Every structure is written in C-alpha cells, then in structure tokens.
C-alpha cells in the first residue's frame, strides 16, 4: 500500500472504518461457527474500537488525517460565528488585496529587471552637484558629444548606450491621412545587440546605425505597438513613417517582452540616436546614458574615469567666457553610476517615495486587520477552551492543539486571500489609471507572474503567523482541570485583548496622521494662488516646420478671435507651468553676469490680459516691441536683480556665452506667477516680445508657439476641434500639435499628490473602520464576560457613571496609551515623509489634532452599544442564571 493510497484513504475514512469493522465481525462469526461462545470470542479479540483504530491509523497518512479533522472542525467553528467570521474575512481580504496591489505596482515600476541580457550589470550614469546639498539634485541628461568621449574611454570596461526619454510625438504613416501620436525613443544602434535581443520581424539596429548623423533613416517598432496598431501585420516592414520633416523606413519589430528602458511608459517606435536633431550639439543635454559593465569590472575606477572625461568636456565647452563660479561647478561636477536593473525613468524617480509610503500605509492597515482577527480568535477561545481541555485530558500533545488553531487561522487567511486576490487584481490597474494624465498616460506591465504569486503565498503565511500563533499558543496552554471546572483565567486574556487594542489604535493614528498630511499637501497645492486666471483658458500648441513671421502668427490669432465664444487670443512661446524653461544669466547695467538664472518667456501683446495677470506698473507690449529691446519683468525679478532700484526704464542684458548679450529695457512690472512647477518657489521671470530680431535687426521667423484662447464661458474643450481646424485651414503652414486647457496642465502637475491624497484618505477610512470594529468587539466581549460582576454591582447600588467606568475604564486607558504611542511614532516618521509634503508640517497642531479627534469619535461610537448593554443588565436575571 503506497503513500498515495494512504493519502487517499484519509478522505475515505468512513468506508475504511466500516471495512475493518466488517473484518472483525466476520472473525467473531467464524469463531462462533467453530463452536466458541460469542461473548468469549469478543473478549478474546479485545476492544473492537481499539483494534479498529489501530488498523485504521496504519492505513492512513497520520498528519493528513489530523489536518482533515482540523479543517472540518475549524469550518464548523467559523460557521457558528458567521457574522464575526465574515467581518474578519472581509477586513483581512481588503488589507491583503491592498498589499498585493501595492506589491504589483512597486514590482512593475521599481523592481522587475528589464527583459534584457544581464540586467544585474546594467547601470545608469547620473550627474550630481560638486558639493552635496541637503537635497542632492541629480540630473540624468547628457550631451551626445560628451557621451561619445565617455563611450570611447569605457571600451573594454563597459558598453555605454544612449537612450533618450520616450516622448509623445506626432507621426504620420504615409498610407494614412491622419497625424497620430506615438511614443518615440531615440536609442543607440548597438543597444539591441548589447541587450541580446532578437527581432520578431525584420531586423533591429546595429552598431552600424551609430555612424553618421542623419544618415540612418530607419525605425524599429516595439512588439506591443505592432500588435496594437498593426494587428501583427508582417507587411509593416518596409512601410515608411514621417516624423516632423524626416521620413523613416520601418526595418523590423522588437522582441515580445521589450518595451523600452523606461518603466511607466511603453516605447512604440525606436529611432537611432544619430537621427535626433540635437546629436551634434554640445550644449544640449537630451539623453540618458546607460552602461552594461563587463563582469568582474569594479565600478569605482570606471566612475572616476567617466567623471574625468565629462569634466574635461565641460571645461572645454565653456571656454573662458563664463562666470568663474559656473566654470568651477561644471569642472567639479560629479558623475554617479547607479544600478539600473529595472531601467531608469522619471516616473520611477517621481513615484518611488510615494509608493513606498503607500506601502507603509498598506502594511499598517494589514497589521490592524490582523490585530482584529487575533482579537476574534482570542474571543473565540472561550468556546474552544472546553474542547481543548478535553483533548489535553485524553492525551493530545501541545503541538496538536496549536496545529488545530493554526488550521482555523489558515482557513480564514485562505478565504481572505481569495477575496484579496480579486481586489488586488482589480485595483492595481485602477491606480495606474489614476496616475495617467491625458498627455502622458502611464503604462505599467502588470502581468501576473511567479513573483506576485510567491508574494501572495508569503503574505498568507505571514498573516496566519501574525494573528494565529499567539492565540494558538495561548489556547494550547489551557489547563484541563480549570477549564473543565468552568472557570478560566480571564484576566490574562483580557490583557491580551487590550494590548492589541492599544497597538491597533497606535497604527490607526499613524495612518490617519500621514493621510492627513498628504491630503493637506494636495489641498495646499490645488489652491495655490496662481496670480493668473487658469479657468476657461485653452492652449493650442502649434508648429510651423518652415517658420513663419510673427505677423503671420498674429494674423492667425486674429482669425481665432473672430470665432464665436472666444473672448481673447494671444501667443506665447509655450504655456506657463508646462515645465518648459528658457534661462540665462542676467547682467544689470554692465555689471557681472549673475550666478542665478533669470527665466524668459516670449509673449505677444495682449498676453497679459488674456492670462489675466495683473500689470503692476508700466505698460504692455506693443506690436513694434522686439526682443532684444523691451521686457516686462515680475516682482521677484525686480527684487533679485535690481535690488531696490526703480525698475521701469532700467536696462539689463541676457548674457550669452556663444555670442553677444541681448539687451532689454524694462517697460512693465507684473505680479508673480509660477513659471515651471507648482511646487517650486516663484522664479524671477522676464517676459519678452514674441517678435525676435537678430544682431542685424532682421525679424526672425518662429517655428513653434502656443495660442492661448480665453473662452467667454462654457467648456473650453468643446471648441478645441474647431479652433484647431481654423488654424490648419488658415493657409499659413501652421499645424496644431496639441490641444489642452491650462487647467489640465495644472492637474497634470499634481497627479502624484492627488493619488496620495485619495489613497491616503481611503486607507485612513479603512483603518478607522477596522479599529472601530475591533474596539466594538472587544468592549462587547468584556461586557459579556463581566455580566455577573456588573449585575452584582448594580444590585449593590452602582448606577450610570460607575457602570460605564467599569466597562470602559481599561479600554479608554488602552486607547490613550495607543494614541500617545501613535503620536510618538507619527512624529518620528514625519522626517521621512517630508519630501512628499508641501505647505504642511508634521508638527502643525491641526495635523496632530485630526487623528486625535477621529479616534476619539470612533472610540465613542464603538463604546455606545457596549455601554448601553452594560447599563441594561438586569441583576435579578443574572443571578438567577447561575
């Protein structure tokens, strides 16, 4: 009889026992047939039950049989307390699902290695400032000529690759009329080879495609894009696609699992770096540098070499015509080599901290849920005590009892895990959607794999141990005598419950505290005064490949103004808060070039009124104003560069290192407004006329700009398509590349804060709910346990307040202890969450007050039913029930 038969017998216990009984019976019958008396025969055989069980235990796998029994018993226990079990399973399912979801997101964005050869040897080169400041500013963009020098220097030690950011670009397939958007990434030709990737169709780039700027008009599609856009059509190889002015031939499709090097976005079209228009510029930093380090190569000497090469490049580039301080900082800039096993992307940098904090919140909620379930198990122990005592009395080992309770816990955990898996499945893509903006949808590869499954299993085991082990140990330590007598050591059990309550309250406090900080941050950012009116403002980003005179742009603007529903129209280089930046050193009255940047933006006359940015002094631009020539500066500019001097009429110069400076006279002063980011302080900005002239006073054509359209009322989006068409049909060679509202730009800037606020609020609610339910359960249990005592006291004359104190005193003490612990914990963690906050401090009284108030309310609500029950105890009934 093999192990399999023995295992199978476990589930056929009844039949097996019957068979053995039959055999024993037939033995007795045979004895009777041979003339012996039945009584004597049975006596000779011995205790039938004993014989049967001996044989039975021989034929089943012992441990499996015990397990089956425990499962059946546990199931019966759970069914007997349907409501509490359901509550426990649900709260656990929610918490576990959130855990799995958080894991999936973090894995997809931060941890999963890129599907390339040797991801453990993949690094990213970053630049850091020469003096480490409190917030190290790490910059990941490089200039291509610098990259070429570094690549040469690294030969033999590592392979260097250049990959640009994945940008959403206009592309046109020659067979289609429509211009569509695709995610384009410029990569080194050697990237596919170095990564060990094979094409799914056609061919991929090689090192040959890294030779000559502009001479390799080839494109490779990603498999994902090929499947979605072309339905895996093999005839796509050989087709052509137009980007801007250039035409590229599609030569192949990448492998199935490779979607670029930036987690959070999926590259759709790969182009060689040689085809990027910045590839020969020494002063433009536009791509990341990745390195595959040869096995066994030490990192530090490589880093030092790269740093030396980069510094030499910067020194040569700047020459001598820059302020000494700038030269110094460039010459001592540090190069860092960071591991990039899972790729490198801005989304990673932006969300790394946020996701970790969310994971912390989720973990705390899980612990609260586990504490709840542990409470439940401990409370159930009363009904289980007799059973346990009986088992101990007939010889069960301690481990056997522990196993019994653990099995019950495991059943709860498995049920919760199933619910949690469903919740986790659904919620991870939901969160991904929440961090998508219309311009930059986030795409994470959330495929289920063994990592998620392994995490899930580990989670179940951890959860079972967390809430099952202590009650199991406690329950198995029962002493049969006292249990069977009916009395039990209730004091230690109550202490355990109250201890758990304190822990729950402490964690709940931290969750609500952090959530309050995150929500406060979001509100502060959302309501940050902008200085201008962002509502009803439509932005049309427009390009003109051949460039048009500013007058043409103004004419098109006029034609837009004539359309119904339009109040004002203006042009600018780009919108405020679109993260675009144009900066330069400022020199006032021939003085030395400033070490701080001044920031510039080209605007047309009427832009100030369109934006509703108040003019504080001076005048708006006229049609005749040019740059260089006139400028309107903001208050911060006046404060920073002009000291206290009268701004109107003053001259300043924008210092250029590769040519003459551009001199401007200040003709107006405007109120402050954010320039690039909502989160940064106000920068000194000089608005200059859209009409630019060169040294010979020839008006320069403009190849890109943004029309700002203020709508009279109603939804600005609705007019978007019409305005776009109007511009295309104006016959001026202008084409709209993007339409959005100013409000959308603002919203996109606070996506992360909104996510944190929403999820923080959600988890805080769940935490308070769980803690409240747990508290209610414990108070209820306490009252039930002490009914006799309460009855006697009421009989002796205790009223209202005294009864309440009896029930609630200890619990209130626990809640207070928990709150204090929570405050300490919260303040301790505040230091680490500071980087995510804006405008709120952990030590704000309001921030500390919210969790205190919330918990106080929850405690009061949870206590009311229990206290009412205690007050209504009838002493006569109690004593009669004895």
């Amino acid at each position, binding site marked *: *009889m093999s192990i399999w038969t*023995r295992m199978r017998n476990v589930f056929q216990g009844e039949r097996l026992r019957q068979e*053995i009984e*039959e*055999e*024993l019976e*037939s*033995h007795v*019958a*045979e*004895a009777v*047939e*041979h003339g012996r008396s039945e009584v004597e025969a049975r006596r*000779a*055989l*011995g*205790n039938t039950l*004993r*014989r049967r069980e*001996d*044989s039975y235990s*021989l*034929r089943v796998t012992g441990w499996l049989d015990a397990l089956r029994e425990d499962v059946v018993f546990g199931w019966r226990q759970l069914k007997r307390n349907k409501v509490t079990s359901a509550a426990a399973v649900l709260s656990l399912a929610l918490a576990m699902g959130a855990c799995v979801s958080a894991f999936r997101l973090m894995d997809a964005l931060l941890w999963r290695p890129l599907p390339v050869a040797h991801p453990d040897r993949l690094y990213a080169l970053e630049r850091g400032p020469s003096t480490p400041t409190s917030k190290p500013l790490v910059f990941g963009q490089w200039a291509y000529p610098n990259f070429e020098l570094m690549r040469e220097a690294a030969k033999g030690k590592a392979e260097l690759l250049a990959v640009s950011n994945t940008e959403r670009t206009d592309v046109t397939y020659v067979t289609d009329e429509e211009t569509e958007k695709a995610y384009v990434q410029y990569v080194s030709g050697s990237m596919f080879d170095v990564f060990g990737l094979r094409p799914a169709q056609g061919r991929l780039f090689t090192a040959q495609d890294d030779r000559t700027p502009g001479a390799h008009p080839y494109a490779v599609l990603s498999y994902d894009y090929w499947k979605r856009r072309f339905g895996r059509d093999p005839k796509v190889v050989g087709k052509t696609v137009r980007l801007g002015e250039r035409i590229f031939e599609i030569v192949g499709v990448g492998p199935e699992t490779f979607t670029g090097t930036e987690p959070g976005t999926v590259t759709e079209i790969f182009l060689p770096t040689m085809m990027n228009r910045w590839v020969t510029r020494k002063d433009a930093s536009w791509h990341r540098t990745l390195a595959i380090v040869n096995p066994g190569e030490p990192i530090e000497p490589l880093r030092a070499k790269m740093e030396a090469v980069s510094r030499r490049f910067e020194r040569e580039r700047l020459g001598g015509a820059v302020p000494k301080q700038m030269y110094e900082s460039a010459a001592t800039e540090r190069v860092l080599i960071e591991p990039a096993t899972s790729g490198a992307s801005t989304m990673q940098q932006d969300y790394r901290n946020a996701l970790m904090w969310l994971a912390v919140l989720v973990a705390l909620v899980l612990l609260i849920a586990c504490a709840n379930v542990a409470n439940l198990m401990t409370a159930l122990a009363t009904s289980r005590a007799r059973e346990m005592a009986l088992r101990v009395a007939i010889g069960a080992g301690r481990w056997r009892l522990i196993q019994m309770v653990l099995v019950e816990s495991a059943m709860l955990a498995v049920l919760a895990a199933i619910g949690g898996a469903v919740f986790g499945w659904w919620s991870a893509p939901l969160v991904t959607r929440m961090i998508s903006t219309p311009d930059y949808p986030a795409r994470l590869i959330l495929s289920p794999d063994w990592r998620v499954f392994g995490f899930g299993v580990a989670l179940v085991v951890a959860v079972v141990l967390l809430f099952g082990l202590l009650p199991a140990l406690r329950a198995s330590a029962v002493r049969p005598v006292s249990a069977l007598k009916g009395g039990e050591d209730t004091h230690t059990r109550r202490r355990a419950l109250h201890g758990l309550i304190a822990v729950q309250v402490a964690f709940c406090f931290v969750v609500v505290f952090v959530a309050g900080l995150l929500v406060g941050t979001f509100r502060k950012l959302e309501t940050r005064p902008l200085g201008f009116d962002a509502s009803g403002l439509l932005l049309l980003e427009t390009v003109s490949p051949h460039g048009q005179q500013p007058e043409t742009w103004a004419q098109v603007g006029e034609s837009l103004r004539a359309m119904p529903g339009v109040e004002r129209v203006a042009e600018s280089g780009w919108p405020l808060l679109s993260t675009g930046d144009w900066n330069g050193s400022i020199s006032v009255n021939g003085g030395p070039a400033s070490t701080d940047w001044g920031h510039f933006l080209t605007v047309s006359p009427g832009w100030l009124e369109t934006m509703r940015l108040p003019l504080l002094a001076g005048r708006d631009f006229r049609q005749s104003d040019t740059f260089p020539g006139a400028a309107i500066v903001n208050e911060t500019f006046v404060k920073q560069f002009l000291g206290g001097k009268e701004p109107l009429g003053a001259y300043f110069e924008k210092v250029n290192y590769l040519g003459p400076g551009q001199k401007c006279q200040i003709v107006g002063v405007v109120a402050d407004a954010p320039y690039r980011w909502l989160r940064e302080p106000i920068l000194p900005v000089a608005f200059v006329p859209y009409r630019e002239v060169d040294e010979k006073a020839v008006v320069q054509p403009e190849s890109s700009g943004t029309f700002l359209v203020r709508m009279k009322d109603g939804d600005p989006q609705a007019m978007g398509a019409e305005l776009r068409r109007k511009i295309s049909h104006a016959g001026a060679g202008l084409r709209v590349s993007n339409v959005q509202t100013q409000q959308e730009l603002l919203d996109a800037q606070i996506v992360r804060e909104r996510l944190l606020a929403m999820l923080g609020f959600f988890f805080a609610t769940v935490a308070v709910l769980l803690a409240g339910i747990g508290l209610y359960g414990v108070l209820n249990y306490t009252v039930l346990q002490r009914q006799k005592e309460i009855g006697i006291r009421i009989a002796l004359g205790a009223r209202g307040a005294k009864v309440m104190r009896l029930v609630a005193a200890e619990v209130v003490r626990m809640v207070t202890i928990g709150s204090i612990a929570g405050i300490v914990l919260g303040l301790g963690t505040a230091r680490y969450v500071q980087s995510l906050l804006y405008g709120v401090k952990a030590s704000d009284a309001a921030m500390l007050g919210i969790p205190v108030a919330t918990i106080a309310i929850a405690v009061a609500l949870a206590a009311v039913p229990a206290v009412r029950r205690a007050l209504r105890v009838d002493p006569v009934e109690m004593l009669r029930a004895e």
Partner: protein
Amino acid sequence: MAKNDLQGTLDLLVLKTLSQVGEMHGYGIVAHIQRASDDLLRVEEGSLYPALHRMEQRGWIAADWALTETNRKAKYYKLTAAGRKRLQEEEKNFEHLVKGVRAILRYA
C-alpha cells in the same frame, strides 16, 4: 515460548502459514498456527489484525473479500512475491536466533 514473545515472530508464522495453506482469512490463520504447533502457540487475537494490516501495507500479503464455505463474507489473505522473499529472510533470521540462544544456553 510464552505468548507475549510472539510479537517478533508473528510475522514469520503468518507468512509461513499462508505459504502452506495458500489463501486464508484471519481466523483460519490463528486456528492453523494453534493446530500446527500442537497448541503450544496461541496467537493473541487482538494483535493479529493490526499485524495483518501492517503486513498488507508493506506489500508482503494481499487481501481480497470472498465467501467462506458457509456463504459468509470474509477477507482472505495470500502471499505475494515480495512476501515470499521476506519469508525466506525471516526464516534465516530465526535460525540464527535459535542457534545463538542455544549456544549461549549450552555454554559452560
């Protein structure tokens, strides 16, 4: 040998019985042992069935339900090939045991 000492040799006796009578049920095995040893050996009936089931599990004997002469259902056991081999081993072991004990008893 006293009844209790049969524990170790019960396997041997059962296997030998089955090799001699072919198929037999539990009661018959007990009866045969008693008869063949001239009433010197009496198997403790209580320990028989656990032993039979243990041996069945080890694969030395195989069992099947059948009808007795009196048309009653009973479980019949028979020897398997592995059981035959085991029987040979057990016989050899027993010979050694007896020889050894005799030698000690005779030692002067």
